[in-house]
């Protein structure tokens, strides 16, 4: 794939690959709406040079459903707990939560809050989000996402 060096990973995903699940909230790494996983680590794709993903694995919100196309337990828990209002921050939040659970399958409330501190949500006030992540962790039985 040929791209301009100034391209960010976010642009690569949305413009070049048509994967519009990942959102641009601020474009400056200050909101987390653009969060995706690169080699298992949460990053702000709006700041990540697209040139750097060569040889690396990128996981976006489109990639976490199971092989039958069912929503991931995180997605299910977010819906059940009312953690989605306008939905704009949701893909980034879920990917941040996914990265958190990869590292820490049974986080405490405090650990959850620290894990998603890089994601802003203007609608929910975060309580439902924390509950949803706790619920997802129990769905996954501490076995990681």
């Amino acid at each position: 794939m040929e791209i301009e060096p100034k391209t960010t990973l976010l642009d690569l995903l949305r413009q070049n690959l048509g994967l519009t699940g990942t959102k641009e909230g601020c474009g400056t790494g200050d909101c987390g709406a653009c969060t995706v996983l690169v080699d298992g680590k949460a990053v702000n794709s709006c700041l990540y040079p697209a040139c750097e993903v060569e040889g690396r694995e990128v996981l976006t919100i489109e990639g976490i459903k199971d092989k039958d196309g069912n929503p991931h337990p995180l997605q299910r828990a977010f819906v059940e707990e009312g953690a989605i209002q306008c939905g704009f921050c949701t893909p980034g939040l879920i990917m941040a939560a996914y990265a958190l659970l990869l590292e820490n399958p049974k986080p405490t409330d405090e650990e959850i809050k620290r894990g998603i501190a890089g994601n802003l949500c203007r609608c929910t006030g975060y309580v439902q989000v924390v509950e949803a992540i706790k619920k997802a962790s129990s769905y996954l039985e501490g076995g990681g996402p």
Partner: protein
Amino acid sequence: MLDYLKPTTLEEVFTHLDRLGSDALLLAGGTDLFLKVKKGKLTPSFLISLQRIPELNFLREDKGLFIGATTTHRTIEKYPYVRKHYPALADAEDVLGSVQIRNVGTIGGNLCNAAPSADTAPPLLVLGAKIHAVSKQGERTIPLEDFFQAPGKTVLTPGEIVNFIEIPAPKPYTSSAYFKHQRRQALDLPLLGVAVQITLDRDLGDITPSLSATWWDCLKERKVKCLSARIALGVAAPTPMRAFNAEGVLQGEIVTEEVIEEAARTAQKEASPRDSLRGEAWYRREMIGLLVKRMIVTSLLRLRR
């Protein structure tokens, strides 16, 4: 037009720098630099990515700690040796940016970006860090207090890059702390950063206040001497700074509330904060007084055994 280069050895980096001069900029994580390029604040013709150079990405314990320039903040945050022996640095990595930023941003990038607000700077200053820089001509070691020249500017010469940061092993009865004074709990820049490292002549022992003796009374009774004090401030001057006069007040003295407060007042006078978006000078000066005292106490509390 921008070209993106991906060298895999230091020699290749030097060759590029030699050939391209100021048309090229070095990219570590990119959380500061790539954003500036994206926004057009910086207009290099070439970006030289340092992400594939193993000599720059390591953590090594050896009578102290050696941190490669492209080690990410997240790696340092999670490193037990750092948390145990250099708590001020762990404190800073806990609060820098966000998890997403820390997974990509590097310690070398943070220092070379040379913002007066760099969160790793005050801790590294009090921990006695030294920059090991390397160029085609050879190597040199720069104490961190000599590294920053002006906002956004270091003493590195063209063709010179940071290889690694060296932090000496802490002496016995030494601890440290860093506080990032910020408006939000995450995803914010500090409006003031305060780091302290204290070495005592013995541990604090079991200081238990009672009805007749406050914590400060107990401390005074204990008569611990401060063998070494280091105090550093971020966002209190054009570059991260050591408060040498304040350190002199505490160093060599028996630690009491009065001595600590005098050190804090001295730090206030030494600093030259200014009015800015995040806070006004008078407020920053007030908070220096409060936070220097608080970080000295935090370091002391970490020395209870």
